């Protein structure tokens, strides 16, 4: 699929922002993609209903990260903090979007984060979000896990800004999603990056055919690449491969037989690069 066709498919880009450093990296990536696709950018900030509920407990105490002291919290206080965060991210988004001359909008909704994002993503063509948000620990946050598995559209998760000039890796298989994944290279390829195609096939013969197919498409689009056959797709192994090759973006077919949900989650948890799930 050519870039022009891709532009038709990607007209509305949803970016989830919660003011965490990772969500700001997601915003940066969304701005870049929206510029490339000439698409509309929609920012969404979800006021987590769970946080608002917490203030209803008489025993609820907030422990500060900086000064480990405990303070009482109440609903108006939490609401005010969330509003302030929303205003801040809206300000950042508007500045960046206007600098890039993009059409943009921003909305704040209240509810469960995953549910609200899923609902919002229905009207858009791709959602871009930070891998962990404010969650601590190494693993992807619960919202990311839900979106990876349940999002109806393309989803990009990342934990830092997309590194330009670094290799783009794409998993290709014999399925419509596989073909979509291959053509999604146009979304992120900047003409200087190496492209590495990971062939997902059980048999060598199938892998060879897939490689030829992919090669033909890539050559048609002026992209040179090298190929790796993965007879067995294992999340951790794939993640290790992205690290050793200093991968910038990994493009995966989301509904692949070779990449069940657990594998995808493993991959998301263990990779450092941006992951674009194509559906």
């Amino acid at each position, binding site marked *: 699929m050519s870039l022009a066709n891709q532009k038709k498919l990607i007209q509305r880009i949803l970016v989830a922002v919660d003011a965490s450093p990772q969500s700001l990296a997601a915003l940066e990536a969304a701005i870049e993609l929206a510029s490339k696709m000439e698409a509309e950018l929609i920012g969404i900030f979800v006021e987590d209903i769970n*946080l608002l*509920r*917490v203030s209803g407990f*008489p025993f609820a105490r907030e422990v500060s990260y900086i000064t*480990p002291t405990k303070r009482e919290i109440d609903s108006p206080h939490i609401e005010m903090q969330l509003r302030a965060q929303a205003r801040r991210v809206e300000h950042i988004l508007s500045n960046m979007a206007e600098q890039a001359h993009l059409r943009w909008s921003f909305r704040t909704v209240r509810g*469960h984060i995953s549910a609200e994002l899923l609902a919002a993503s229905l009207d858009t063509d791709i959602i871009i979000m930070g891998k962990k948000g404010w969650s601590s620990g190494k693993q992807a946050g619960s919202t990311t896990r839900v979106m990876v598995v349940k999002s109806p559209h393309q989803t990009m998760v990342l934990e830092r800004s997309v590194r330009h000039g670094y290799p783009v890796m794409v998993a290709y298989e014999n399925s419509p999603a596989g073909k979509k994944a291959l053509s999604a290279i146009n979304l992120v390829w900047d003409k200087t990056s190496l492209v590495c195609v990971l062939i997902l096939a059980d048999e060598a013969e199938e892998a060879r055919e897939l490689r030829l197919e992919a090669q033909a498409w890539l050559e048609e689009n002026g992209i040179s690449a090298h190929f790796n056959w993965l007879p067995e797709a294992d999340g951790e192994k794939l993640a290790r491969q992205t690290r050793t090759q200093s991968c910038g973006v990994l493009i995966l077919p989301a509904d692949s037989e070779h990449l069940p949900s657990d594998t995808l989650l493993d991959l998301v948890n263990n990779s450092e690069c941006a992951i674009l799930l194509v559906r």
Partner: protein
Amino acid sequence: MTKVQPLPSSALYQRCNPDQFNFQSTAELENLFEIIGQPRAIEAISFGVGIKHEGFNIFALGPSGAGKRSLVSRYFEQQAKTDATPSDWCYVHNFEQSHKPRAINLPAGRGVEFRRDMEQLVDELRSTLTAAFESDEYRARRQLLEEEFREKQAKAFEEIQHKAAAVGLSLLRTPSGVVFAPMKDGEVMPPEEFQKLPKEERQLTEKNVEVLQEELSNILQTIPTWQREIRKRVTELNKEISGYAVGSLLEDIYQKYVDFPAIQEYLQAVKKDVIENVKDFLATEEGQSEEAEGALDAMLARTRRGQAPLRRYKINLLVDHHDTQGAPVIHLDNPTHQNLIGSVEHMAEMGALVTDFNLIKPGALHKANGGYLILDARKILQQPFSWEALKRALQSREIHIESIAQMLSLITTVSLEPEPIPLNIKVALLGDRQLYYLLAALDPDFSELFKVQVDFDEIMPNNPEIQHLYAQLIGTLARKNNLRPFDRYAVAKVIEHSARLVGDSEKLTAQINDIADLLREADYWASQNGNHTITEGDVHKAIDAQIYRADRVRERFHENILRKTILIDTTGTRVGQINGLSVIQLGNNSFGTPSRITARVRMGKGELVNIEREVELSGPIHSKGVLILAGFLGARYAAEQPLSLSASLVFEQSYSGVEGDSASLAELSALLSAIAEVPIKQSLAVTGSVNQHGEAQAIGGVNEKIEGFFDICKKQGLTGNQGVIIPSSNIKNLMLRQDVIEAVKVSKFHIFPIENVDQGIEILTGMPAGELDENGNYPSETINGRVQVRLARLAKKSKVPGSSEEEPKT
């Protein structure tokens, strides 16, 4: 008494004979490289340059245009060629006290090399350290440390999350912290539902939350300690990696400068600093690693403060002699404090003024150190603080760079105290004589610091040998100024004008600038006249044009005389009235003009009233001259009787001050005329001073005075009786205008040289002065006799009580 004869025309002008020159034009002459007519100055400069002791700096004094600068420069440059080339000096960063940069010296030419070596070292350090810190080994070790921290932190949080989950709680992130909340079906339990739980269950939950909060607080308190620990270990790792890289790179430069302990010491400090601040090197590469990314922020922050980090390893080569042959000779035309001593400049960074050792700028003392410095004395005295700074440097034999603004607390910003640099220099000040004597009188340090006086004369002898050299000088100046050559008649005319400038037929001016100006102007007129060689006529025209341009005031004066606004008679006779002569100096031009002097006498008590003095228009020398007259009168005519005379003397129509004693001869003559009641010829004018014995003494400006009176007489009509009486000692000064000489030649005008007042009064009155006989009396029909009789009569009357009537007016 012998009758005074007027001077022949040949005595009025000392011609320079063009036929003595064996050239047609100055184009045939070689250039003149020596200074002429300054033997004393040449000997003094020779001594001053040669002597090496402290304080033997030079003050070249004399009129402007005497060739002070060129003589001093020439001797300095000659000596400098044989002197050793002094050291290069550079300032480097002081790693212990950054506000006190260190000075390092190196043999001439090696400063550039050292600077290049350090630049290369920094470049190599940058690439080597970047490579080292981007190596897989370093990354792996660094990541391991960071991973260790992250895992430790994540594990702590995971543990507490597990503990929370085990009791039905979850850890939630709020915008400003974390909270624990009871969960149900993967979300926070609605509070109202929680309230419906049994009391025991609620209490248990609350207790669990409290325990977990406490535990979380403990973990959060521990995190900074873990971070510090990790940072420390990362720093140790960085030191290990950078120490190895730096050590090998520095070894070469160590070996190269092994003979320079100061550089060895500096390189040790550099090594230590590089290891401690390795991030600065990585920061200049574009965020290639996490190390660099972190350092980039640091660098930006430091740049904002005006401290681009790698600037501190630069070498500020203050004095570079790599292309200097011998010692330097520096002329400083604008001796401001900072041009002389050097300065520490500042840069504006984010609204603040910042500086570092790279912004230390050298002054002339730095550049001339080990050599010679030439300064204009007046200019350095006019520049605030420069004179004091020069003296301080010469006294301490060190150059301390100090900021005036900071010295005076005009600005309060970060500044430096650069290490002083030892000073070994010979300074020559150029100035006029008055300045030299003022400094010698008023500045006690001056005589200690400028012991060699190079005194330039304003004049030189006018003899054939000098005239030949003068011709050569004219040729040289013509060539240097791209002028046409001068023919020998023009040269002779220039030499004659030179004598006229100093008002002495036996001398020539040493103020070559005036001569150079005349040459340029003559060249202009030659071009106007279409001459390829400058002729006598062109020089003449240049002189006349110079006079005409400056002649407006003289014309007004003379016009006023001719229109009888100022009363001057050039015919007839008057008792007690005489034409005196004065010179008016306006800028570079001076001219003479006659002034009427009158004397009135009456009986009195010996007072001689100088009316100018009474109204404070008389200068001290003029007043002295008038008092001398009283001395003369008393001694000659009233030695044994009271001087019962009251006389008044005045310069008529004088509205400004009168100074000088050149009118005293005229005043005495007027006084004698008034006492003796003998009229004075108004066709004559008198100049000259007189002493108590009545002897005529030389005065200045004799040419201008004669010409001034001649011009008036000429305009009123030359009768053949007109002339000027001058002291005979002024004959040598005569260099009169051609039209005066022509008039004298045809006896239309006369110059009378006299030895004493008696000769003068005889010419003025036509009556003999009279000589004292053996009885102490003068013959009755002489001036002196009449004066004696009149004074005796007055003395006698004054003895009669009540006799106070005024004597008949004269």
